């Protein structure tokens, strides 16, 4: 699936496909290492979600959202936040947020890699099943949990 760089979730990566800038700007990005065919990972997010820091090989580059929207990448696996999920089976990809939040989820048997079953999503208020237990997260919390959709 081809999406703009700006839609990547933290920790996610993709292969650079194309840059949609005018020639001189495009050439500059390429010279900085944003080369089609390379793998790029979203590694640091800023307080306002803009700008974003990406990693290519050993190099970290800060790009503003405006520009990230014009760089397109191919992502093999789709990662989304629980808030955006529709009913189905998911694997936990990443839990953002502090130590306490993670500890709390761990007690509910939710860690990276656990399989969950989303039952319904009511405007971000998500009910899901883990190990036959049903849990509900509010919008704020479900935003912080990134999941990967598993094939139906």
């Amino acid at each position, binding site marked *: 699936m081809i999406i703009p760089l700006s839609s990547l979730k933290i920790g996610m990566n993709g292969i650079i496909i194309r840059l949609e*800038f005018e*020639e*001189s*700007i495009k*050439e*500059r*990005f*390429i*010279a*900085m*290492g944003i*080369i*089609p*065919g390379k793998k790029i990972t979203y590694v*640091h*997010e*800023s*307080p*306002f979600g*803009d*700008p974003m*820091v990406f990693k290519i*090989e*050993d*190099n*970290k*580059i*800060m*790009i*503003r959202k*405006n*520009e990230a929207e014009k760089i397109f990448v191919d992502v093999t696996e789709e990662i989304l936040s629980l808030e955006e999920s529709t009913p189905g089976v998911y694997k936990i990809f990443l839990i953002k947020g502090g130590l306490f939040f993670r500890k709390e989820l761990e007690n509910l048997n939710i860690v990276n890699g656990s399989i969950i079953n989303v039952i319904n999503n009511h405007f971000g208020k998500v009910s899901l099943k883990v190990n036959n237990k049903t849990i509900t997260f509010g919008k704020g919390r479900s935003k912080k949990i990134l999941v990967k959709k598993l094939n139906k």
Partner: protein
Amino acid sequence: MTFEIAIIGNPNVGKTSIFNIITGSRQYIANWPGVTVEKKVGSFKYKGHHFKLVDLPGIYTLSAQSDDEKVARDYLINESPDAVVVVADSLNLERSMYLLMQILEMNLPAVLAINSIDEAQSKGKIINPSFISKTLNIPVVLTSAKKLIGIDILLESIHKVAEKKSIPVRNFIYTESINSFIEHFSNKLEEYDFLKSYDKRWLALYYLEFGSKNFHYPETLIEDINSQFDINKLKSEFMNWKFSFISSIIKSSVIEKGRSWAMRDILDHVMTHKVLGLLIYVVALYFVFSLTFNIASPLSDLIDIGFNYLGNFFNGKIPIPWLNSLIVDGIIGGVGGVLIFIPQLFVLFFFMGFLEESGYLPRAAFLVDKLVRKFGLSGRSFMSIILGFGCSVPAIMSTKTIANKKERMALILSIPFASCSARLPVYIILISAFFDKNAATILLFVYISSILLVLLSAKILQIFFIKGEEVPFTIELPRFRMPTFRNLALYSWNRGKHFLEKAGGIILIATIFIWLLSYFPNNNDISHSYAAYIGKFFEPITLHLGWNWQTNISLIFGAVAKEVVASSYMTILNVGQEGITYALQDILTQRSALALIFFVLAYIPCFATLSVIRQETNSWKWLFFELFYTLTIAYLIANFVYLIGGIFL
């Protein structure tokens, strides 16, 4: 004869570090992209030959955007050095090769130095230089400017290339259509006499990559070419050729074990953390200020004792009264009054050195970019503002890398509001005298206000400038590096040396001047001296702030260099470091001292700053504007603080 050798490469790969080692100089090095903004020249001898070495600003590509990048590009296009050392980063080899290819297309005699090889080793990355060397037909050397690896071999290669004169033919095998384009283009060029001296194949490729913008191609030529070829299609074909060529070289010459740097990754996550990132900075700043008062101040008392001793030693030994006073009160008192702050300044320089060498600065730029955009600035500007805490001069120089003219001009004129190290002595004597209990907090407050002042000023000033070219702002976050003690010491020494030179130069002259004005015309009767007359002249506009003539005359001399405010207080009040507290409490109140602190923060940039403003804005108009502007703002703020102070103090 002398060989001319140029150093070129991506930003922050270690060009200046290598330059310093080879030439034995001490040019400015730091761990963020864009440190070198001007051409720097040095020299060295090797095997009996003289070499001139030119260090250039870093560039990613020959299509330069900002003024510093133009310096490097124009050098490559217009000069013909005997060898070009292309410095690459061993952990970002592929990207560095892109620029290298552009340089090889120009048919320049090149040497490739793959630097920071120590870091590649610690990551388990192995590079085979001989494969790259054979493929590109250039010498390739693995170097480390930190561990001093490969420098001898580099010199030997430079020497060989420079002496050879003829450039080895590099026949890259381009695609069919690119070849025929080059062929046609070069043939056409024959028709133009004034292009005879240029390399024809290069002009063809340069046109393919960058169009007609950066070079004076004749109109008729362009028309002909555009009618015969689909340039855009050829261009992307050329780019693709280059990518696959580069990655085939990398594939055959690099082995990666991919050992990870877990510790650095964790550190980086903390430093770029949404909340912690800036909090750490503020806490560190607070810590530095506490050190300033608690650790450094006792040291400076010691120095003060030394100067007192020196003063007492000379006092009375010189039979001519005025000369005795000049040496004891003027020179020893005045210059000493500045030198005693060396410990505090070194604490600050050490901290600044840590920010610059660790790689924190671009991370701060990342964290605040969105925020400072509201003030018409970018994260890059914020880096320059933080640099301003050290000294305004390099901070203003560093704005050269800002491509947006409007942002740059507003920033140049606002950076003097960033509280530079020279203002620290003045804060210290005032804060010690009036706010001893929460000294570090007050100082932190002053510094944070100073950032706000810069931001607001930049916002306001931007109405004066026409909109510059909008260019996307991106910046590379360099790898975290633990600053070595040696580098920090060198950094602090470089900054400290500048301070000492000032003390022996402009501050000494100012001090003698102050002494003259306070000694004459009534032989050492200060309250009836010229200094008093001048100071009293301004009292009508300063008395309501609680500043009498002693303060006024100190401020006037402080326009030369801000630390002079502190030293001239000592001369005029005729006291040293320990006496200054009581002497100040006699002539100022808490409220007026706070107003004074803010006045000193904002008023007139020192001579050195003014001259760099003149140079970078290239106009006298802005210099005079700056004088008037800072003075007005400072006076307004002082009045404001005095008013507010009336409520709280």
